[in-house]
């Protein structure tokens, strides 16, 4: 199950663990990503709270957690290769995995078609 937030994060859920990243639209808006700071395992995240930082040469943006939970793992590969966020935002460019505390929070997020419609509205 893949869901999207209005802040351009995606979350893909398996069991009670969600994998979070930023969308293709978000990476294209940011341009060349030069640095990503992901949360360390064990950190408690609140829905809508700051979870990670993503930087291009001229901009720094916060990435928010789409759900409440505890970080299981940050994507260590992004430290050496932040360009993965540009080349494969929905795959290898994932940011962190989070153990979801409140499954009901997923209901407030958009599905793929809904997000596509949302992005279209931004243009």
């Amino acid at each position, binding site marked *: 199950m893949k869901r999207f937030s209005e802040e351009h994060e995606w979350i893909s859920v398996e069991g009670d663990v969600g994998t979070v990243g930023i969308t293709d639209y978000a990476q294209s808006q940011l341009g*060349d990503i*030069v*640095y990503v700071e992901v949360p360390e395992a064990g950190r408690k995240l609140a829905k809508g709270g700051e979870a990670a930082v993503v*930087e291009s*040469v001229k901009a720094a943006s916060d990435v928010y957690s789409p759900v409440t939970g505890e970080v299981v793992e940050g994507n260590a590969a992004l430290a050496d290769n*932040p*360009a993965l966020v540009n080349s494969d935002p929905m795959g290898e460019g994932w940011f962190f995995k989070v153990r979801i505390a409140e499954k009901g929070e997923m209901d407030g997020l958009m599905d793929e078609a809904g997000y596509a419609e949302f992005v279209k509205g931004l243009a």
Partner: protein
Amino acid sequence: MDRSQGRSGRPTIEADATKQTFTGNRALQLEESLIFEQDSPGSTGVDLPPAPKVKSRLGGLERQGAVGLPGLSEPQVVQHYTRLSQKNYAIDMGVYPLGSCTMKHNPRLNEKMARLAGFADIHPLQPQSTVQGALEMIDLLAHWLKTLTGMPAVALSPAAGAHGELCGMVAIRAALEARGEGGQRKRVLVPESAHGTNPATAASLGFSVEPIPANRQGQVDVAAVKAALGPDVAAIMLTNPNTCGLFERDIREVADAVHEAGAYFYCDGANFNAIVGRVRPGDLGIDCMHINLHKTFSTPHGGGGPGSGPVVLSAALAPFAPYPWTVKDGDVWRAAEAGSEVNGQPFGRLKAFHGQMGMFVRALAYMLSHGSDGLWQVASDAVLNANYVLARLKDVMSPAFPGTCMHEALFDDSFLKGTGVTTLDFAKAMIDEGYHPMTMYFPLVVHGALLIEPTETQAKADLDQFVDALRHLAQKAKSGEAAAAFQAAPVLAPRRRLDETLAARKPVLRWRPPPAAQAAE
């Protein structure tokens, strides 16, 4: 005449010529390696007397290994830095139209005065009886700054504009605390057009920053200010003239509303050059304002500092000014320092010693040279030059706001719409024409901003040539056929566009010996 006729072929020829030189040099433009790559071990550029033989008292902490510095003789060092210097654009070379930076002529008299032994070769902690002239000089500078701004007090120690902001905002915090309202007033209003230091300063002091929108005329929205004011607001930080190059028409109304709400008015004085000598900020109802001596008063920018950011203070804030300041007891000057007898409740100390003395001397030399009449003319000509540039470009570029401006002319990128040329491309093309670009993409409230501040020290003929060059570039961009050329610019500078993504992804922030050399050690 289309000037591009004579120039269009040049880039290719130049590029070929570069390939043809054996050295990679291009006549006067010399390639220069890092100083670490020019090591001739054992060489030095200084001859020192031998150290007298003594028993070391370094307590067993003697350095064991080498530091790793290269050895060069004096002529090698001179050539290295001379070659480097020739890769820089500078005010001494021509129009340097960086908006909000006030790149005006730096008189060499100021340099000479700052190097007088009685100013340059005195220690900050000498007995005060031996530095009476220095304290007198500082007090005279303070007198000029207070008179020009119409404010009763000035704190001189801040080292730069941003440091001055910190000083002013701490004074506000201290004043609020003294009123018992420190815990309650936590919001600071900052217009969206503000320089980034304003929100950074306020946030560092624990204030929450609340952006205030600008209206369509590029002026702060007074209604929005009034709506945002309340018993929890500590201050407003307003730049005037603002970063759009406009005088805030409603500034008195803003000041009155702010004071009525019990808050303070911090004025960012970055653009003081537009009004110096003609308008006293004190008459506008401000509580404090920093002054960038390196802008308005012409101390050199030096490739990014040192600056100096004195802060003038209203009677309400003056008691909280930080150490040190000068006091005259009878005929004797002294510096008020921690533990000495003082009036007021100084909030502490922002910097060691007395502030940027070397900059004080330069600024005072500049003020004395201009005098009150000359400074009046400084603001007049700065505003005239900017408006002349605006008037001569408004038909080919797109002014961000209608009407006249103060000391800088702001354009948006709508004149480039559909040309495939961006603000950045346009700026880089100016480099090939021999100009430093204007400030780009600032202020943030204007799309693709191009902010031009010519200052008062450019002659009309130079401005005419500058304007002609920009008109030419604007027309070339609009022809719709030059996007590729703009995107490739600059092609004639010591370097073409640099890969900033690479620099940020794999930061190389220092030289390291090549692996082979490390292995050989």
